[in-house]
């Protein structure tokens, strides 16, 4: 049998999609909801994974913090000698971290670094990823490099400000005073979580904003010698310096993923529940539970349709419904995440503590993800619809028609 027969069967299957309108709409709607949930979360989760990878690549190999009583406290300058003398350490530089406001109501990350040491590290934040301007010099004081998110935020604030090199921007200090900074560069990084809302400045200026004294800092960024085993260096630092908390780039990556994607599992569970409901619906509609569907299979068989013809019809019906439902769900998720900025969901998934600037949500779509979503949407519905039809199709038409 040739193309015409398959064309007839396809045409009949598409007719069935319209014929059983209530069933079709219910399956498409169910798949639309479950796929929207899955994809809205998955695009953010995938974005976070990509972002964390970028951030970790742009950052140091090891970050060393000081913990006292389980709480992070400032590190004294005296630690620097021990760190730099540890075997395997190539460069170690202190950093001062904290949060400040430019008067917009949003807390922004302020990081103070040693310009000479930090600027010499290829890959360190800001050293080779500037969209415009220059990196910090040793002599710079109250100069800043800002993330793209801050540029976007200020451009759309109540009193719009187009930030460019040379713009003056005031930060609110820990004492509530204003200190004026000059913008000397703007980041151009793929990372949303790491430097989208970041202000990079010199150590002294950061201390003034954040309230650190001159002899302490927040953490130490460490780069190791090429070819050195990272965990061995981390072990030596951990055992050599009391109260040290040593975070390798891998550990930082794990921490960030746990912090930002921990709730994705909960949403995935919700997706699973909705998908199961749709599978159940498809199964019921195609199984012995649906007298109409059962009788139709019996009639087709009696009129001379082979079992394979019946299955082809049911498969085409299921694939059409699944493709429609999943494609609508993916389209909605793209609009919801990429255009609307995933309202409420982004905060839930990434954690409400993360500073979220407009457009600052890490998002990504990959072909493997789309392929997986289509597969998990189509295959279960296909099986749920085809298996009962197959069971009816291999039963004698007399039994199916009479229901004996």
């Amino acid at each position, binding site marked *: *049998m*040739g193309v*015409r*027969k398959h*064309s*007839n*069967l396809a*045409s*009949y299957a598409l*007719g069935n999609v319209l*014929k*059983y309108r209530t069933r079709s709409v219910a399956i498409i709607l169910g798949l639309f909801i479950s796929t929207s949930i899955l994809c809205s979360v998955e695009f953010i989760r995938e974005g976070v994974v990509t972002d964390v990878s970028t951030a970790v690549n742009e950052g140091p190999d090891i970050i060393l913090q000081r913990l006292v009583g389980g709480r992070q406290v400032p590190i004294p300058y005296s630690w620097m000698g021990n760190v730099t003398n540890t075997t395997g350490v190539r460069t170690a530089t202190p950093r001062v971290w904290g949060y400040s406001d430019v008067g917009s109501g949003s807390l922004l990350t302020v990081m103070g670094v040693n310009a000479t040491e930090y600027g010499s590290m290829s890959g360190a934040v800001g050293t080779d990823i500037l969209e415009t301007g220059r990196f910090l010099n040793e002599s710079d004081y109250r100069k800043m490099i800002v993330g793209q998110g801050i540029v976007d935020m200020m451009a759309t604030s109540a009193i719009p400000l187009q930030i460019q090199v040379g713009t003056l921007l005031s930060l609110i200090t820990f004492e509530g005073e204003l200190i004026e900074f000059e913008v000397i560069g703007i980041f151009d990084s793929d990372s949303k979580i790491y430097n989208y809302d970041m202000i990079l400045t010199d150590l002294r200026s950061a201390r003034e904003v954040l309230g650190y004294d001159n002899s302490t800092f927040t953490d130490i960024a460490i780069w190791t010698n090429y070819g050195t085993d990272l965990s061995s260096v981390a072990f030596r630092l951990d055992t050599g310096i009391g109260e040290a908390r040593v975070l390798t780039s891998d550990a930082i990556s794990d921490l960030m993923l746990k912090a930002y994607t921990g709730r994705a599992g909960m949403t995935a569970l919700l997706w699973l529940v909705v998908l199961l409901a749709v599978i159940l619906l498809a199964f019921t509609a195609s199984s012995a539970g649906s007298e109409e569907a059962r*009788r*139709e299979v*019996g*009639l*087709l*068989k*009696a*009129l*001379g*349709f*082979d*079992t394979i*013809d019946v299955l082809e019809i049911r498969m085409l019906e299921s694939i059409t419904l699944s493709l429609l439902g999943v494609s609508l769900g993916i389209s909605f998720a793209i609009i919801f995440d990429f255009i609307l900025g995933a309202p409420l969901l982004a905060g839930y998934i990434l954690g409400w503590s993360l500073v979220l600037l407009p457009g600052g949500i890490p998002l990504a779509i990959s072909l493997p993800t789309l392929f997986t979503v289509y597969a998990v949407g189509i295959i279960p519905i296909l099986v749920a619809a085809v298996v009962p039809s197959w069971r009816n199709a*291999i039963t*004698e*038409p*007399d*039994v199916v*028609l009479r229901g*004996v």
Partner: protein
Amino acid sequence: MAIAIRTENVWKTYNQGTHRHVDAVRDITIEIEEGTIAALGGPSGSGKSTILSLIGLLTRPSRGKVFLGTDEVSGFSEVFRTKMRRNSIGFIFQTQYLIPQLTATENVALPLLCTDISRSEAERIARGRLCSVDMEHRLDFRVAQLSGGELQRVSIARALMNDPRILIADEPSASIDEALTKDLLNTLRAIVDNEGMTVVVASHDPMVLEWADIKHLLHDGKLVKDD
């Protein structure tokens, strides 16, 4: 005249639960010649529909043999039996089994959708068949918009779509009045005369039994009289 249909000591037992078996037909042997109209008579539950299912290859006998022409078809594979239904047998079911969401033309065209005839050609043939049973004014009507008699006519048109050698009709007058029954039987007779097919009708309607060329009466699954 050659024998079109023969059953030879046929039994059909349905299993209803683990220990309950019902013999729907018992040791039935009948012969039907080509080009004749044979009626199976008897009360409800006498086994008429079961014999039609056996002859129409919708089910297999539990014991005995069924022949169509010289072929012993009860032992054929399901694929071959389906092919025979597609090419050689037409069905008029008691409850018609028309698909309610389709039009009369679409319902009638259905048997040709599993062949290599295009859908548009199948629908063209279907319209011709509907016209031959005086349904040209209802071609695009849906099932719910048709009367009982019209439904039977659509069912007849569908049964004729594959130019069958054997036409099987189960209680064709069950849902229509006397006038419509007469009309239906005249239509069937004209088709048989024109196309030379063999017709087997199951009915407990005396008018249908009188109309047939030969009668086989059944009671409680057994053949009680050949006429």
